[in-house]
């Protein structure tokens, strides 16, 4: 009598996950875009522009430059769409966006600009959370402002590693592959970056402890 249980993991056909559906949709859109349908590519842009902007805006302190980097990333993706061969369009596009941000940061090193101009604008407030308590909103806003300012002040490679790990949730090996450095270098950048943040915020730590 045959054993009904699967003998190996390969025997198990995984159920279709939302990720699979997304990947299939992306694949179809890429095929249509390659056939010359601009609307299909713009559907991909609509799906991922928030993600790319959020990622790059954390890596590139200047908002205008961040927007330029994201636009350049989508241009680059369109130009090089034939070189995409899966499996994840999101991963492929994220890597392009990170490269665009890193290129911009390297250029910014040569021509430094004032980071985070919104910090000079007293009317600027970060987006409010679910708490509507004015004191909580003010504290949260101040905490985010000083943290974002400190993030803009640390080294670009450390900031990139921290954003990818802490904010975007990638693991060490993914970050190593995306940034083209070793696993040890990724860890070292994250450790040093956090220590640098703590040194910059040493006088404001009570904001975070409360």
């Amino acid at each position: 009598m045959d054993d009904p249980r699967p003998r190996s993991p390969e025997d198990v056909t995984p159920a279709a996950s939302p990720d699979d559906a997304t990947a299939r949709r992306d694949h179809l859109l890429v095929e249509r875009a390659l056939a010359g349908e601009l609307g299909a590519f713009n559907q991909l842009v609509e799906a991922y522009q928030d993600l790319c902007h959020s990622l790059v805006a954390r890596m590139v302190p200047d908002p205008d430059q961040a927007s330029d980097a994201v636009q350049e990333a989508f241009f680059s993706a369109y130009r090089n769409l034939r070189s995409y061969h899966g499996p994840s369009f999101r991963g492929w596009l994220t890597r392009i966006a990170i490269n665009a941000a890193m290129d911009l940061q390297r250029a910014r090193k040569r021509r430094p600009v004032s980071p985070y101009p919104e910090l000079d604008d007293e009317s600027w407030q970060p987006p409010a959370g679910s708490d509507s308590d004015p004191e909580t909103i003010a504290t949260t806003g101040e905490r985010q402002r000083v943290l974002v300012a400190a993030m803009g002040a640390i080294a670009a490679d450390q900031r990139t590693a921290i954003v990818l790990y802490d904010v975007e949730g990638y693991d060490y090996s993914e970050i190593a592959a995306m940034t083209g450095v070793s696993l040890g270098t990724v860890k070292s950048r994250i450790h040093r970056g956090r220590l640098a943040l703590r040194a910059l915020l040493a006088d404001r730590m009570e904001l975070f402890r409360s």
Partner: protein
Amino acid sequence: MGHVPDHTPVAAAIEHAALIAALDAGDLAGIERDRAATLVGTCTGCASLLADLAVLRAATAALPAVPRTRDYRLTDADVARLRPPAWGRLVGWLGAPRSKVRPLAGGLAALGIAGLLLSTTPGFFGQAAMTLSTTGAPVVAPGDAGGAGAAREVSPQLSTAPTTQAVPGAIPGPKAVPVPSPAAAGVPAPTAPPSAGVLTGPAAAATPGSSGFSSDAGATDLATKAAPPEASQAERNAALTPASEPATPDRTLLLVLSLALLAAGIGLFVANRVLRHRAQA
């Protein structure tokens, strides 16, 4: 000069901070982890650092998404601007992993190699040269003692052409078909066997100016006219030589074509490989 370990308080503080940061990230194991835990337990600064790092890590992860201020969808103008030029499209086609460049390169290279083999194989062109040299054999007037012998001295090809009969088994080429010259249109065919396709011997030379049954014979007539009777034998031979050369351009043409095809095939293959590597990088 060897590396001298730094035991200053500053260096120790930096090392301890790195250890605490690694502990906070969960990247330590074994002895290192025990050492960091001991530090945290015995040093208030270390414990404070560990707590601060944890708080900052949580605050960083909780940072809100930066609102998007621009629509990044591409317009038709963007697409027109981004469209690569003709050479860019060519480079893209050459470097495309799934293009037909590799089969094309392989086919061209194979054709080139085949052509090279044919052009350098002695038997292939040797047979053709034999036929051509046979049809282009000089015609020597009767009584011109040593004429055949002198013709043999001109070139090895000429020396293989008998003056009295065709080579057994020689394939009659296009030039071997007897074509009456205008001057000889009304003259009956000479005694030479038409199946041999070669006009030789005294019958051909007996009637200068009207004995040409082939273009080669005509060429021989011209050569004979070009070299006056009183000219030396060497001059005559020099005038006769061009009649037996048509084999060389054919071989050279095939050789050049084969080399060009081989170079094109190899070039396409190398371009495809280089551009694909560059695209992957």
